Each structure stands twice: as structure tokens, then as C-alpha cells.
């Protein structure tokens, strides 16, 4: 599938609107799953569509008018000045939430950890430069406990991050999502423990990690 065909047949917008037939959708997904340019276009099309809808809904709600297409467009244009001012007023609030926003918007980075392969030698993990979730998919026997605790432990036994109450994804794995901001370069161990109902912990796996910066 080439980009001129995608453009010509409006595949980006038809995909976002959910109007592509199943076979076309499958073919387009097979193309864009590995195409950053199309992924960018899809993100933008989704966001623009949502923004136009929200903007009209907001103006409708505040005015109570009965809308026609022309009236909506006109009011959207008029709202520009207020919108531009708002951009600057919200700057500080945005910066506070910026890292959270980016960590939510970017896909997580996933590292698979297997007991047979990663329990003896440290697994090198590059901490993402931008805030995002780092997810460790730890392959363990996850049938013995209903909840698990995971902790990142430093060389002197200090815990730099921990999370309790993690439920298994499947009988043989649990996911440990860690915000990248909580990870620092150095040698650590990801310790996974089973949680007994009364709160006591039993270590079920230890994965040595070598955390590095890009």
C-alpha cells in the first residue's frame, strides 16, 4: 500500500471515522502498524475531529442557540480571540501536567523478563528520554498468589520504587508498569513477591536490571 493511494482514497479519515470495510481496514492496519508517517496522520485526524466536535458542543452549550452549519462555523471563528488569550493563561497549569500528559499519550515501552533467561545476568534497560510508562512483563508462575508486590531495589537494599496489589495477566505472567521518572541509571533488582491475604510476602522472582540512559 502506498501513500498516494492512502491520500487518494482518504483512508486516514475513513479509518478514524470507522467507515472502512473490514478487508480495507485490515490492509491499512497492516501498512500503518509499521509506518510512523501514517500513525502521525491518524493521531492528528483523531485529535482534530475530536477538537472540532468539542468546540462546537461547548459553544452550543454556552449559547443555547439552535445551530445550523453556518452559525456554528461563524461562532467558531469569532471564538478565536478568546481562545488565543486562553492559550497563554493556561501555560503554567499545562506545564504541571505536561509530563503526565506525555506519559499517557506515548505508548509504553515493554520489556519481557523470563526466569530462565533474565534471572542470572542483569538485563540492560534503557530509560526513555521522555516521560512514559516502562512495563516489565515478568514471566513467573502466577497461579500461586492472587496479588503480587513488585519493587525496584538498589545495590544497598534500598527500595527506589514499589507497587502492591498487582494482579496477574495470565497464569504465567504479571505486568509491572513503572513511570520512567521513577527509574534512575545504575544496577538494581526487580523483586517480585507474592502477597498472602494477611499481608506477608514471599519472594517469587528476582530480575537483575542494568538501567541506563540513552
Amino acid at each position, binding site marked *: 500500500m502506498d501513500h498516494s493511494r492512502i491520500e487518494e482514497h482518504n483512508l486516514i479519515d475513513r479509518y478514524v471515522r470507522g467507515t472502512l470495510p473490514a478487508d480495507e481496514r485490515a490492509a491499512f492496519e497492516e501498512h500503518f502498524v509499521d509506518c*510512523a508517517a501514517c500513525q502521525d496522520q491518524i*493521531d492528528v485526524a483523531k485529535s*482534530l475531529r475530536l477538537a472540532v466536535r468539542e468546540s462546537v458542543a461547548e459553544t452550543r452549550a454556552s449559547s443555547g442557540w439552535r445551530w445550523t452549519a453556518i452559525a456554528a462555523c461563524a461562532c467558531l471563528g469569532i471564538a478565536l480571540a478568546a481562545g488565543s488569550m486562553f492559550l497563554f493563561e493556561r501555560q503554567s497549569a*499545562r506545564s504541571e501536567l505536561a509530563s503526565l*500528559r506525555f506519559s499517557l499519550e506515548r505508548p509504553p515501552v515493554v520489556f519481557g523478563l523470563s526466569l530462565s533467561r533474565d534471572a542470572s545476568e542483569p538485563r540492560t534497560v534503557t530509560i526513555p528520554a521522555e516521560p512514559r510508562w516502562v512495563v516489565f512483563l515478568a514471566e513467573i508462575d502466577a497461579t500461586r498468589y492472587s496479588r503480587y508486590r513488585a519493587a525496584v531495589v538498589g545495590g544497598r537494599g534500598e527500595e527506589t520504587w514499589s507497587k502492591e496489589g498487582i494482579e496477574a495477566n495470565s497464569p504465567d505472567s504479571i505486568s509491572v508498569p513503572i513511570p520512567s521518572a521513577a527509574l534512575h541509571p545504575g544496577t538494581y533488582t526487580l523483586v517480585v513477591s507474592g502477597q498472602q491475604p494477611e499481608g506477608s510476602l514471599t519472594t517469587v522472582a528476582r530480575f537483575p536490571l542494568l538501567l541506563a540512559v540513552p
Partner: protein
Amino acid sequence: MEVAGSSDSGLVSRILAGERAAEDELVRRFSRGVSVIIGQSLADPAAAADVYQETFRLVLLKVRAGEVREPERLAGFICGIARSLVVEHFRRAARLRERHEGEPDRQLPSPEPNQLDQLLRQERAVLVRRVLSELASDRDRKILYRFYIEDDEKENICADLGISALHFNHVISRARQRYKKIFESMGDASRK
């Protein structure tokens, strides 16, 4: 440009040979695309994250086990697994709803947008107002309105407004580009 070892079949061969870096590469390469596919059907971020993780867990298991029949179509294989898991998620959710029909749902999330949602929504409103203000004419604004709000088909819009398909594509494409550019400049500003 794709190097031989990074082609779909090359990646599968390297994983089969036990190369751990190849598994990381697979996840890195398809991560965002898989997120887009799942996000297209699943609006709930927590459910989408679960399906995303399960997709890569299953993909890696199957690739390691040599279950990819057409290694040169690894991308299609991954998409297929992601779609199946999304369908499975909806089936499971439907079964759960049937089982708990009539019971009070104590964990129903608040329908009110949280602070972050509100902020993002306001941010998008600012962006779209700027984009709309920069469109050349009322006719171009009408195109956006009918396309995004009324969900009109391209052919109908072109026929009603007497414009060519080329002009339509141009307006939509320009709006997207402007929106992206303003969005990126806001992101840069917030990081400073």
C-alpha cells in the same frame, strides 16, 4: 531504509535464534502502531493497556514457538492478534455484564472528566479555533464542519459545495497540518 536483519522475516529468524535484542526491536517497532489499532476500538485506557500488553506477550510467545506461518507478513500477524484480543475483550465484557445484570455497579467510574481531561479538552478547543480561523473561507470551514460534525461523506460535500475532490483533500490536509504544527509548538512551550 530497511536492513536485512530488520525485515519482518529477518526479525522472526533472529527471535527464533534466541536473540533477545530482536524481541526488544519487535516491541519497539510495532509498539505505537499496535496502540493505534487497539485505541481505535477501545476508549478505556486501562483496558487498552491490558490488551496492548497481552498482544505483545502473545506475539512473542508465538514467534518464539515458530507459530508464524508467513514471517514476511509479521506486521499482518501482529495486527491480527491485536484485533482478536480486542474482540475477546468485548466478548468478556459482555459476559461479565450478563452475569452481573441487575446488580449495582459499585465501581462505575465518574462520568465527569477529570482535571487532566478537562485541561486537554480546553487545549484542543484552543487549537481548533486557531486552525479554523486560519482557513481561507467560510466554504472551507463548512467543509470541516460537515466532515467532522455531520459525518457527511466526501462525495456529498463535494457535490453540494461544488468543489473538486482535490480541493476537499487539500482543505482537510491543510487543517490537519496546521493543527499538528500548533499542537507541537504548544508541546514545545510546555516543556520549556
